[in-house]
């Protein structure tokens, strides 16, 4: 038999250990390029978190949600309102984060309930509208009573803090100096590991199978006794809660929120991460989120030097060229890898069987 077969678990363990070690030292490697890169890595992880939340709705249950950013906005604003001088409230994170999850979950059900009978493109339009409604509310809820401070946004938001230990400032632990972004990195890493475990466990469970059945054939799912209404609401609610938690961390990390951060393009980006990576396949979604966060940033740094080296001068505006390359990359991936960059083994097996 294959001698590798027996050695596989050991190899797997080694891979895991190496990956864990790489993840632990990553913020210090990134810091060699400046703290800006640590922040980019932080955002990559935040987007992994968001994409995995959306993956529950889109990838598992097959509900095309174009308004996902609304839940992120709800979480972010909740944190901003409850931990900033705006209302003079400074609640601790262990109150706000769960509350953010619950409130976002409520909004998820609020969006889910009227859209239960809709599918595919119709659902996409309604969720898109919902996302915009939330953003416009945030933009306009400054009169007659000033709740969100309108387009100016809310500033001086409290960072995540455990007692006196603030995540925003430089501090020294065990003789190692951690910058703010580096500390947030570890916080995000813990959260994202949690959400990965939840995703994996959900997928291979009674609930996950029911979602998959709804995605495949809703009528057949009903016929075998799946309460499709409750299962869809559950998917919306779960996805939304993760969005809410991510939003809270985002607000704390930035120290500032404004409606601008929650535009339609953000929803589309998160959806693109899920689709590009491999819908419903957790490693694929993670890859998609990391690539779509890091690639545009890397291009930002590369566009000018490359032009200078090739043409001797800067011909095209870096910002527009960057988006052009980025867009082109998306089109090419979808053309040549329609199931995503890293599709689930089922999909791969399918292709293998076709070519057999």
């Amino acid at each position, binding site marked *: 038999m294959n001698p590798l077969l027996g050695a596989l678990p050991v190899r797997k363990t080694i891979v895991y250990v190496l990956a864990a070690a790489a993840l632990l030292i990553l913020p210090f490697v990134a810091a060699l390029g400046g703290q800006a890169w640590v922040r980019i890595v932080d955002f990559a992880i935040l987007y992994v978190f968001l994409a995995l939340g959306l993956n529950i709705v889109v990838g598992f249950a097959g509900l095309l949600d174009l308004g996902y950013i609304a839940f992120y906005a709800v979480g972010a604003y909740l944190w901003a309102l409850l931990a900033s001088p705006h209302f003079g409230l400074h609640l601790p994170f262990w109150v706000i984060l769960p509350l953010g999850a619950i409130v976002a979950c409520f909004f998820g059900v609020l969006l889910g309930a009227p859209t239960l009978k809709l599918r595919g493109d119709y659902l996409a339009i309604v969720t898109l509208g919902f996302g915009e409604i939330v953003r416009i509310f945030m933009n306009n809820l400054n009169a007659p009573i000033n709740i969100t401070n309108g387009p100016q946004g809310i500033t001086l938001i409290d960072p995540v803090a455990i007692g006196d230990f603030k995540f925003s400032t430089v501090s020294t632990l065990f003789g190692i100096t951690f910058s703010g972004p580096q500390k947030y990195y570890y916080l995000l890493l813990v959260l994202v590991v949690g959400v990965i*475990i*939840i995703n994996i*466990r*959900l997928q291979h*469970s*009674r*609930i*996950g*199978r*029911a979602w*998959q*059945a709804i995605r*495949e*054939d809703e*009528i*057949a*799912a*009903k*016929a*075998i*006794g*799946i*309460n*499709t209404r409750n299962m869809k609401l*559950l998917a919306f609610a*779960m996805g939304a809660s993760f969005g809410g938690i991510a939003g809270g961390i985002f607000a704390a990390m930035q120290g500032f929120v404004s409606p601008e951060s929650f535009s339609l393009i953000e929803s589309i980006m998160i959806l693109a991460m899920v689709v590009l990576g491999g819908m419903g396949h957790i490693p694929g979604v993670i890859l998609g989120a990391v690539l779509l966060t890091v690639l545009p940033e890397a291009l930002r740094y590369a566009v000018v030097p490359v032009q200078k080296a090739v043409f001797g001068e800067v011909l095209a505006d870096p910002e527009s060229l960057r988006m052009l390359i980025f867009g082109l990359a998306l089109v090419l991936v979808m053309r040549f890898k329609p199931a995503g960059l890293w599709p689930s083994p*089922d*999909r791969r*097996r*399918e292709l293998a*069987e076709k070519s057999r």
Partner: protein
Amino acid sequence: MSTDGEVLLAAQAVAKHFGGVKALRDVSLTIRRGEIYGLIGPNGAGKTTFFNCMTGLYVPDGGGFVFDGAPLKADAPHQAAERGIARTFQNIRLFGNMTALDNVMVGRHVRTEAGIFGAVFRGRAARDEEAAIRRRAEELLHYVGVADRAEDLAKNLSYGDQRRLEIARALATEPKLLCLDEPAAGMNGAETEELRVLIEGIRADGVTILLIEHDVKLVMGLCDRVAVLDYGALVIEDVPSVVQHDPRVIEAYIGVAA
């Protein structure tokens, strides 16, 4: 089999129209516990509409069903399954991108209860339940004879295997009444014979069967009683030997002699 068994399902003057088309005109019939009941009729006679009303996919415009001693709620397909009615579809509706095993495992949904917390924390109860689901699904795959394709995607199974898999999925819901919508459609003689054996086996295990079928030979050989629908109305409900020779049935199928 017995013709005087206890009533499992009673349809009471079920009516359904689509615009001006009367798909079902006050259809009343009774299915007794433990029998194989055939529902036949020419194309467009309302057989599948009847199925859809019974399993809650359509809301009847009149009348209703009493199942196992209590009325069936209209417009609640998942509750029909919960009460013990399972069905297959005329144009097979499997979950194509799920494995054969997963298709049957998801059929256990209605008889199991692990929720979000069970799924995330995987406590003892949730793990035991999951193992039981898998065991039962594997048994059912064996039972219908597609165990060797357990790990294949449902859509890659052969046509006959897909039919069998759909029956396994329906059986996973532990039905009291199994409704098969044209299970022999597109099957050759040998496959139809295998199907006949399978259906008789299911009945022997105590499941009542409602069979919609075009294959008259299969229906007459298999069913204890047969109902004939034509233009949405019940023509006759009786044992096969009587139905076969009823002039109205012959007329419905072949037309009136000039």
